[in-house]
Every structure is written in C-alpha cells, then in structure tokens.
C-alpha cells in the first residue's frame, strides 16, 4: 500500500545521537515541517533529560510521554504529578475543546438519540417496500457515524488530555464494564455511557461507578436487563454484575462464594430496572406510583418489579423499589471479594501479569478503609515496592508488551505530540487490526490484560507495519474526516527534543545499534516505534 519509505532518501545516515543542526538542515531540504523549528535537541545527560526510571514511570501512569507530560513532570516532580493525575479537575482540558466541539454526540443525550433512532425505525416500517431498504441503510450509516464519533472522542482525550491517568482509567473501566456496540441500538448510547457512567467516576468511588453503569441505557440493553421483569426474569445482567463487575467468579481468586440462588435473588432485585423510549408513563396504583423513577430513557417501573423481599449473600433486602438496587450494589461493593477482585485487576493492568499477594493485600486494605476510593487504591499501588521493582526491570519483573491501545496511543503521542490529528479512521482501524477495537469486545468480560493475549506472530508484524504507517507520515491522519487530503504534513521527526530528553538516555544498546543502520528518517521512526524499548512498558 505505502511504498514511500524509499522515496526521499537521506544523503547520509541519520545519526540518532545529536547532530541536530545537520538534521535541521536536512529536514528543511526535504520540506518536512514536523518539529524542525523546535528547540535543537540537547544531548543526553543534559538538564532537560529525565531518567530511564522516570520514563518508565510516566509510561505507565500515562498513555506514554508527550512534551506536555514531560514538562509538567519536570516542573513539579513525581509526587505532585501523581497527585495531580489522581485528582484531576472535572471536565475536559482547554486544549481539547476545538477537537471535541465538532463531535455530534457530545451535544446530544443518549436519550434523545435513542428516541430518535426508534422513531426513525417506526417511520421506516410505514414506508412503501421499495423505499425501506434505502432508509434502513441511511439509519445504519447514521448509527455507524455515531459510533465513530464516540471512538474519535475517546481517542482525542486519550491522545491529548493532560489528565492522562483518568483517560487510562476510562479505558480500563470501559473494558471492565464492557459493552458491545454491535448489539441493538448501543451505537447511539455508547458515547454517553462513557461520558456519564464511566469517565466522571473513573477516579471516584467504585460503588458510584457501579451504580452509574446499572442505570445506563447501554448496559441495560447490552445485558438484557431492560427485558427482565417479575415473573419473566432474565438473569444475564445479575450474573455479570456479580461475576464480572464486582465479586469475581464464585470460588475464584477473589475468594468470592455465592450461589445460583444469590444470582437469582439479585436478578429479582433488578426487575423493573429498564428503559422506556416513549414519552408515556406506565399507569400504576398509587403505592407503586410513588416508587416510579424516570431519568431520560432510564426507567424503574415498579409494575415490572418483584415486590417481595430478597436475600443476597445472607442479607435480607426489604421491598423498597429502586432503593433495593442501591442497597444491593452497596452490599456487593463492600464485600472483601470485590476489593480483592478489583485490586488484582488494577494491578494486572498497571504492574504485572501476576501481581503478588502482598501488593494485592495492601491495595485491598486501601480499598476497604477508603470504602472503595479508587485514587486511594491506585496511590498505594503506584507507591508500592512491587511497582518500583517493575520499573527497575529484572528477570523477575520484565517489561511487558503494551496492549494495542497503549501501543497505538503512545506511538501517536510521541510521533505527533501536540499536533492534533484530524482523521481518526486509520487509528480506529489499527485498533481493530490489532484485535482491540474500541467498544468492540463482543462478550461482557472485556479484553484480556495480560501479555500472552497480545504476544502473537501476526500481532508483532502488524505492529511493525503500523509503526511504519505512523513513522512515515502517510497514513492519512491529517486528511479531512471525509477522506480528502489535508495540508501536506510530511513525516514526523522523532529525533526531536522529547526523544533526546526522555528516550535516548534509556535506549538499549541493541536498539541504538539498529537505529544507526537505518537509511532515512522514516525508517528510523519505524525502527524506534517497533523496538522492544518502545513496544514494552
């Protein structure tokens, strides 16, 4: 597809170490904009440089370094940087506003979008046969566009937000409370799911996060609870709420122990928790009328709710309508098994494939003493000896292969830095090709977090090809959204100040040697992004 790597060959080898002035001249000659006008690259060991340990720390706390992150880190130091990341101000940072403003779904609620989609489906049903198909295709395209908008917004934030830990945690929780966008009308509700249920609570209290997913249209549709009613129970959601979202599988590593009866009782609690896409309110007798809850298309319908008492994990839950759900969620979130299940999963994502019991114990203690305050748990984890050992890199704690999202996001952050890309379709496709499409996990268990899930032959070679697409600058990232070519941008200059400040000092001898054998800047970029130094974190 792209064979431009050979085209603008350098007259001389690009030396990765310094020679910035020569480089700048070369770059000017080839007509590359990139970062040629920036500060000349300092040598390693310079006052601007950060240590290898700093780099590895930032590589895990963020989606990878960019100029913004490194500058802030250098200005305030590790401890304050972590506190800032753990307690970011609400809302999006100023530098995202232009990108976010053009995205449709950020301006409309899921309720409005779902209602409109339903009305359109009803309208299509009344059309003459020969017009139905075209109308269906148009509706389908609109829904697909909404999904792309959601993906784009997720990527804008992951790539450019200064609140990097919140963005990583948003990805993490979207994966933990995974919802498949291909089902039913979820393409219309997925953006709001991320925006209202997940991101505001990504660094909040775990119980609030769970509760926000319980009342979200996307989850209620995905796991069929919208169809569950007294006498017509669907256990699907109740089971996953226990097994995947809170306690972990019964009898598993979290130490949880619950029965099919507990699942059924929770399913009874959840009856009536559903959706109402109409403007009508169900007619209910006065005692039940008082229990009715409505928020947009979310509805708790006491007429569909099982009004008897339930017993979950030995606790009796008295009939109280929607309050029963709150009570049950609180009960689940305060179980020791939940603290252990969530702590282990966090440590698996951030620390190692097999985190040790002492680390998990410390995180569990923080989880329980803070009543599930996520930043408190993360802080213990980031300050643990085990996290420190993971950064120090040893045979016992080797660096791990980034997952596809981490690889793609970190590469784009390094390559294009604060030059925001415009066309996110190639990025969406790369994530699909690497097996981790946004909102694309079919089953509710989310993508695996351990290295073996990603260390495969096809994956490695595909990553090299993506590294090449990013490194040679011809992936179309700066085209218009409709595919029209944008202004010519050339290829990125990875031998920039960020590289010399942060990456060069820590580079392995082997990678340095291979880089020295490259014959163009694009090839140099490709090798750097393909190297173990970059591919692992």
């Amino acid at each position, binding site marked *: *597809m*792209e*064979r431009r*790597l050979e085209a603008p060959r350098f007259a001389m080898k690009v030396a990765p170490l310094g020679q910035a002035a020569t480089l700048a001249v070369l770059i000017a000659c080839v007509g590359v904009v990139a970062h040629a006008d920036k500060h000349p690259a300092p040598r390693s060991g310079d006052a601007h440089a950060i240590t290898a340990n700093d780099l590895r720390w930032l590589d895990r706390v963020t989606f990878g370094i960019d100029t913004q992150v490194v500058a802030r880190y250098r200005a305030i130091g590790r401890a304050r940087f972590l506190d800032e990341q753990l307690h970011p101000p609400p809302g999006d940072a100023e530098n995202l506003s232009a990108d976010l403003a053009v995205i449709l779904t950020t301006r409309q609620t899921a309720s409005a979008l779902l209602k409109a989609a339903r009305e359109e489906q009803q309208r299509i049903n009344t059309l*003459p*046969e*020969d017009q*139905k*198909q075209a109308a*269906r295709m148009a509706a389908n395209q609109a829904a697909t566009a909404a999904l792309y908008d959601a993906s784009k917004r997720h990527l804008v934030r992951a790539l450019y937000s200064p609140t990097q830990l919140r963005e990583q945690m948003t990805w993490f929780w979207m994966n933990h409370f995974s919802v*498949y966008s*291909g*089902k039913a009308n979820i393409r219309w509700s997925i953006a709001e799911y991320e925006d209202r249920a997940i991101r505001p609570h990504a660094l909040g209290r775990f119980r609030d996060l769970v509760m926000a997913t319980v009342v979200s249209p996307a989850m209620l549709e995905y796991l069929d609870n919208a169809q569950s009613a007294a006498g017509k129970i669907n256990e*699907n959601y109740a089971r996953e709420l226990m097994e995947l979202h809170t306690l972990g599988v019964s009898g598993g590593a979290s130490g949880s122990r619950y029965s099919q009866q507990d699942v059924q009782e929770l399913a009874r609690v959840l009856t009536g928790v559903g959706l109402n896409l109409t403007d009508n309110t169900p007619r209910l007798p006065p005692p039940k009328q008082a229990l009715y809850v409505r928020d947009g298309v979310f509805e708790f319908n006491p007429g569909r709710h099982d009004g008897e008492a339930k017993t979950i994990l030995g606790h009796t839950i008295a009939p109280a309508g929607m309050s029963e759900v709150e009570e049950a969620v609180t009960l689940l979130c305060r179980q020791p098994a939940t603290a252990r299940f969530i702590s282990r999963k966090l440590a698996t994502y951030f620390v190692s494939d097999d985190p040790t019991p002492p680390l998990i114990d410390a995180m569990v203690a923080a989880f329980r003493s803070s009543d599930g305050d996520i930043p408190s748990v993360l802080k213990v984890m980031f300050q643990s000896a085990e996290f420190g050992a993971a950064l120090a890199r040893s045979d016992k704690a*080797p660096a791990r*292969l980034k997952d596809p999202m981490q690889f793609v996001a970190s590469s784009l952050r390094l390559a294009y830095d604060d030059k925001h890309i415009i066309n996110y379709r190639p990025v969406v496709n790369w994530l*699909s*090709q*690497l*097996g981790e*499409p946004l909102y694309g996990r*079919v*089953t*509710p*268990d989310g993508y*695996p977090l351990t290295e*073996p899930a990603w*260390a*495969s*032959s*096809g*994956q*490695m*070679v595909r990553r*090299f*090809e993506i590294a*090449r697409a990013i490194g040679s600058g011809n992936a179309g990232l700066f085209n218009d959204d409709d595919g029209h070519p944008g202004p010519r941008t050339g290829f990125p200059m990875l031998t920039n100040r960020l590289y010399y400040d942060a990456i060069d000092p820590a580079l392995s001898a*082997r*990678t340095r040697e*291979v880089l020295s*054998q*490259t014959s163009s800047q694009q*090839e140099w970029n*490709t*090798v750097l992004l*393909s*190297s*173990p130094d970059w591919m692992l974190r």
Partner: protein
Amino acid sequence: MDRRTVLKLAWGGAAGLLVPSAMTTRAHAYAVPTMASARFLLVFLRGGYDAANVVIPAGSAFYFESRPTLAIARPDPSNPQAALSLGTASGSGGWALHPALHDSIYPLWQQGQVAFVPFAGTNDLSRSHFETQDSVEAGASGDRQRSYGSGFMNRLARRMGGAAAPVAFTDGLPVVMTGDLVIPNVSLKGTARTPFDARQTSLLASLYTGTRFEPLVNEGFELRQTVADEAAAMASGNANAEMQAANRNAISARGFEVEARRMAGLMRDRFNLGFIDVGGWDTHVNEGGAQGQLSALLGNLGQGLSGFAQQMGPLWKDTVVVVISEFGRTFRENGTRGTDHGHGTAYWVLGGSVRGGRIAGDQVAVEPRTLNQNRDWPVLTEYRALLAGLFARMYGLDRAALDEVFPGAAGVDLGLL
C-alpha cells in the same frame, strides 16, 4: 487400495469404528498422523447468504410461487440460465444448484466431492447478524453456556495439542479463533506484498534477537514472506489459467480465487486448521437470479473453492472444507427483489474424501406449512452437531473432547466421511 480408502479407514478407525483386520496396521499407521495430516478449512459467508437460491428446491412449486423475480429456472441442459440438477430426490422433488457454480462446484459435485446440508444452522432466532455470527463462532449452546473469550476452533486446536497448526486468513483474529491458544492470523488480501524489504525485515527482526519475542517476530515475518512468495509464484504461474478463465467468461478469477489459492499453498505446507470469511451476502435488494449480485458472489466463491481444491494437490484427499453462514434468508422474496434475514441455511461440505454428490441431513418438503414461522427454512441439522460429527471422524475425538469444543452438543454423524 487407493489413498482415499486408506484415509477413510483412518478416519473411521480414529472414530472407534470397526476396521477390517487386514488393514488394521495401515489404518493404525494413519490413525495417529491423521490428526496432523488432515486439513480443515472453515469458510464463513458473512451476511447470511440466500441458501434457497443456491441449493435450490427445484422440485417445489412453492419455490417458484415464492420468488417471482428471483427463482432460477428448472434444470434444463440446453439453458445456461437454468439450475443444475443435483439428481437427488427431496420430499417434493429434486434439488438443483445455482448455475453460477457450473464451472467450479458442479464438477466437484459430479466427482462426489461436495455434499450439501440444507436446513442447517443455529437455534438462535434473533436474526441478527452480529449475535448469530458471534454465537456460531463461540460455538456455545443456545442456552448461553459460558465460553467467554474463546471460539470453537481455538478449543479444537487446543484439544488437538501439538498436532494442531491453526491460522486465520483474516485481518484480525476472528472470534472463532480466539481463546487460550495463541493463533496467528494473516490477511491474504491485496498484493500480499510486505511493506518491508529484506534489509528492513532483518533490521526489525534483529531488534528482538535474544528476547522472548524473537520466535514470534521471526514466525510473523516468515509467515508474511511465505504469503508474499505464494502470491508472487501464483501471479506468474497462473497467467495462463487466468486467461482461460477469462475465456470462459468467468465472473472473476481474481478476488477470492487468488486469496483461496494462496490459502491452499499455506495449508498444504504449514497449517492444518484454517478459517476465512467472505462478506457481502446480505442481499436485501436486487439480489438477482441466474445473473446479478448473488450470482457474481457465488461465481467468485465457487472459483475460489475449486482453485483451493486444485491447489491442495494430493492433500485435497485429506482436506475437509465446510462453508457456513449465520442464517438463511426469507423463503419468499421481498418487495425489493431481494430477501430478508431468515433462519435455516445450507452448509457445504467439500473434500477429496468427502462422501459427496448427495444432499445430507434431515429434510422436509419445502411448503408453506414446513417453513419456520411461515417465513424461512427450519433448522433440522444444528451446526455444532454437524461439526462435532465431522471432528469426531477426522480427529478421533471422543465425547469428552467434543464437549470441550462444543459444550453440551451431541455430535451427529451424517456419513460425510
């Protein structure tokens, strides 16, 4: 005794059937290597192909009533637009094949190397592409047996242990191949040329020398190179074949056939469990009859499969190809000269040793009263039962092993091997 007989006996022996004593030794000699020498390819037609216009109940008057613009004419050797007689009796008369398959699949049928299984499919009645494809690939039972993160071909490969060499010929790893076992995937589309030349490849590979990723990187590059070489070899070797194909006015000898021949090269030399998907079958509008949209797709598919068979060479006798789709379509054509999402479909089972030239599995006369929900074909052969039956024969898997591959499914032996 020819190779084909031996293979059949090996499969029979592996399944625990009686083996004539004189052949025991040879059959046994094959019984173990069978697992590795057998090749299995699953072809998934995504979109729900219109089975009733491909494996056509030509003996049913109801077929012609239901499809005023789509029906294919009754078999008539003098009419190239007519369906091709499959020469077997169904309840209400004969079955026939879409004429787009005249040069590709029909010869295989005549050689007894293709069987069709109409009224096949899943118990999923959602009629949703996503849900049905996913549930088929997961291989889970209809009552939502848990099998998260794993597809049935991954479980099959795991069950085969060291004998399995699985691969997905797709851009991403399909659900059917996901699971505990790490399975490579490689796309055979396009030029298949790798963007890296030999020097760049060796530069990139050298980054990983001595790391735990070294074997993966080498395997990945080698696989990409093998694909590129196969493609290059075929491009030069098939120039004549392509011209001949053009002379026969084939709809397309390119596209899927190129991919399928590359696939055969890889399955001949280094893989024994393969998966590929072919899209575009969701024919709601202007589906066409003997000519048109579906016909073009079928021509492409048929050329690909016969090219695959040819390219497998002597190993075609050890090969089984199963063509499936998530569902069939409405038996009656809709208001836009197409068909909508239905239920039962028809599977194809191909292979050098397949007992083909017949319509397999339970059947009913196609009449209004036998339709599912007065709309589409019923499912009389469940896909898991069919595949479990095949795997039992091919790999000698016992009940416990099959239960890992298809939890809760009882295999049915349709005598296809």
